[in-house]
């Protein structure tokens, strides 16, 4: 069959599927359903839609909105208050997104190459280009947009601070922030760059990852979520070099020194090709996930740049609790930002990050997060984590099937009697059947039937083991197996066993016995799940 023929056949199959599912899923709404809905609405909204009640409801809503906006305005006017919360997670103001947008300064359109943006002491600027990034320029900053054309975005930050929340990259797309001391190139999504002429360039990661290098291309390191990298000004340039005074794209002659940020008393290293140290960011970098306002308060700026009094990080329990709250409120993205910023701290955070990614359908990333969590958790690995990891490996088409089998085997090694042991055996049996290892598959299937007989996997194991025995024409073994289960109190197991016995009888050439069993099946399971299979067998035996 040629490629075109295959494609046409695929298209035909697809069209047929659309037709079949469309017909199956379409259907009128019955009057009973309409009545049930009206009754439910009456119960739920009784009195709410009366005009007098509506007025008071509106008044309450207006008051609530007013209060929320006041809180929000305070947060924008006194951002230091937010930042002084130290290691505690800030209180989350839950407002609809559109209201937050309206309260903040409206993002302006994307800039043009050559634009110079200067912000005043009280006027931060935000712009958003849906295809590239949302950028917040802090107060008292100055930058030049060197390039901004959709494929390449280059910002030259001369002084101050910007925060970039970069959209996922397309192949070949480039996003860079340049300061006189460093070039920060995006690999991930959310980061801030602050440039203090004559002092340092400070890069803070909020989510994803950025790489940092000198202006002449020498790599300085990478900054991931929750990390900060401080690139010190070259010593000789401290007072007089053009780079310090006029940092408009001039490369310093001496490579910049790199020092830890936020660590009290840490001296800057001597200029030279020292390896950069990447340390957890101060609390500012970890606070207010999803909050687009960069550090604009002088107190916080001093705290970060002088490395004095870096506040304690929030407790892992707080991070987990807040992330769970966000997830349960459907705010997956904010939960992801929060968890990404803290994932290095605990395997529990990594595991919850995996959950959040999984909820979003980002299975490969979720699998990777679970894998990291397993590595961090040590021995013995947490049971639930092993299960999640193995389950995702099993479902991810990009993962090797053997990897899933290994993960399930690891689970069984640690928890042979665990509540998912039957599922693990089932997965291992599947892998073995796929690999043609029927003996090994039989071992796992028998383990389910013997050790986990009451598990939901038992019925499937019964069918699969029976099928293997029938395929091998081991009629006596198959008969013994099915006979043992034919009176099981669970209908699904008993039904499987009876159908299996019919197949054994057919295989043994005992057609009359098979017909009798079919008759007995019809009596015992008039609404049986395997009616279609039975019909086929009946046709085969010409019973109809």
């Amino acid at each position: 069959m040629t490629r075109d023929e295959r494609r046409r056949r695929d298209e035909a199959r697809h069209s047929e599927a659309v037709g079949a599912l469309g017909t199956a899923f379409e259907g009128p709404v019955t009057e009973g359903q309409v009545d049930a809905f009206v009754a439910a609405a009456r119960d739920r909204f009784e009195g709410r839609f009366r005009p007098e009640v509506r007025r008071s409801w509106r008044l309450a809503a207006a008051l609530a909105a007013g209060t929320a906006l006041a809180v929000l305005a305070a947060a924008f006017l006194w951002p230091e208050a937010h930042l002084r919360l130290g290691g505690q997670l800030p209180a989350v103001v839950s407002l609809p997104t559109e209201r937050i947008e309206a309260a903040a300064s409206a993002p302006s359109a994307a800039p043009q190459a050559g634009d110079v943006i200067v912000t005043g002491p009280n006027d931060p600027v935000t712009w958003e280009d849906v295809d590239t990034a949302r950028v917040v320029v802090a107060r008292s900053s100055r930058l030049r947009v060197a390039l901004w054309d959709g494929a390449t975005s280059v910002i030259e930050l001369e002084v101050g601070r910007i925060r970039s929340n970069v959209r996922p990259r397309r192949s070949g797309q480039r996003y860079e922030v340049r300061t006189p001391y460093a070039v920060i190139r995006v690999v991930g999504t959310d980061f801030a760059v602050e440039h203090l002429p004559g002092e340092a360039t400070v890069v803070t990661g909020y989510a994803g990852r950025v790489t940092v290098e000198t202006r002449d291309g020498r790599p300085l390191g990478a900054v991931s979520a929750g990390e900060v990298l401080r690139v010190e000004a070259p010593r000789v340039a401290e007072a007089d070099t053009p780079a310090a005074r006029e940092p408009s794209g001039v490369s310093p002659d001496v490579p910049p020194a790199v020092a830890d940020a936020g660590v009290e008393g840490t001296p800057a290293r001597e200029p030279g090709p020292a390896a950069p140290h990447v340390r957890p960011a101060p609390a500012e970098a970890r606070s207010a996930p999803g909050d687009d306002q960069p550090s604009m308060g002088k107190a916080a700026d001093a705290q970060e740049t002088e490395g004095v009094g870096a506040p304690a990080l929030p407790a892992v329990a707080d991070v987990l609790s807040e992330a769970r709250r966000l997830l349960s409120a459907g705010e997956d993205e904010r939960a992801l930002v929060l968890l990404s910023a803290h994932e290095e701290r605990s395997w529990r955070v990594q595991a919850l990050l995996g959950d959040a990614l999984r909820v979003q359908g980002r299975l490969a990333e979720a699998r990777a997060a679970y894998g990291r969590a397993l590595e961090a958790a040590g021995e013995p690995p947490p049971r639930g984590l092993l299960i999640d990891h193995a389950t995702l490996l099993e479902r991810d088409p990009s993962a090797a099937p053997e990897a899933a089998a290994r993960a399930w085997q690891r689970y069984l090694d640690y928890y042979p009697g665990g509540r998912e042991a039957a599922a693990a055996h089932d997965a291992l049996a599947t892998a073995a059947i796929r690999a043609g290892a029927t003996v090994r598959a039989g071992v796992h299937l028998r383990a389910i039937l013997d050790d986990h007989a009451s598990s939901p996997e038992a019925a499937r194991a019964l069918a699969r083991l029976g099928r293997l025995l029938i395929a091998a024409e081991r009629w006596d073994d198959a008969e013994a197996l099915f006979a043992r289960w034919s009176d099981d109190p669970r209908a699904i197991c008993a039904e499987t066993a009876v159908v299996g016995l019919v197949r054994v009888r057919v295989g043994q050439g005992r057609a009359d016995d098979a017909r009798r069993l079919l008759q007995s099946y019809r009596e015992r399971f008039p609404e049986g799940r395997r009616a279609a299979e039975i019909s086929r067998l009946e046709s085969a035996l010409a019973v109809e």
Partner: protein
Amino acid sequence: MSDRRRDEAELLERCRRGDEAAWATLYRTYAPNVALFLRGAIGRHDVDDLLQRVFLELLSSLGRFRGEAGLATWLQRIAAHMAKKEARSRWRRERKVEALTVDPAGDSVAPGDAAARVAARERLAQVQAALDTLDWRFRTVWVMRELQGLTVEEAAAALDVRPETIRSRHHRARERLKAALRRIERSAARDSKAIHALREHGETSS
């Protein structure tokens, strides 16, 4: 304002006033399409309850509806959001229970002779199994585009993503579905061969 928009606005105003007849009209008019989406997105079962919850949510959010998007788009957004939550809670409850037989299609198969019914039912079960292999993001887009016939822009508005994302997910969903259908068809062909062998065996023994 178009006639349709005006009718919608009037209906919603009556709903806001607590007019039960308007609630019924709202449900009668829009529920079939929402039900189609929910069945496609999360499966054929347990949709009635969720469908009702979607409309209750619509009523409770009428105060926020400004009429900028059409009512159908607003409703689709609510349905997509609630279906996602439902899928997530099902995922949490999920166990590796795999029925031995796939979902029988019930009465949805066109009437005909028994053999044709069985064949159609089996075919439907196969395509449903293929649909089940798609993950949430692809499945919802596929259902919106292929079954509901939404435009790229409408689907993007309902899922709050960019049109390019819809295009890309739709393309990938189609490719994945085709691959799944290929696999399932191959497996069915093997079964059919086995049945044929069984039939021959039965005939010789009787």
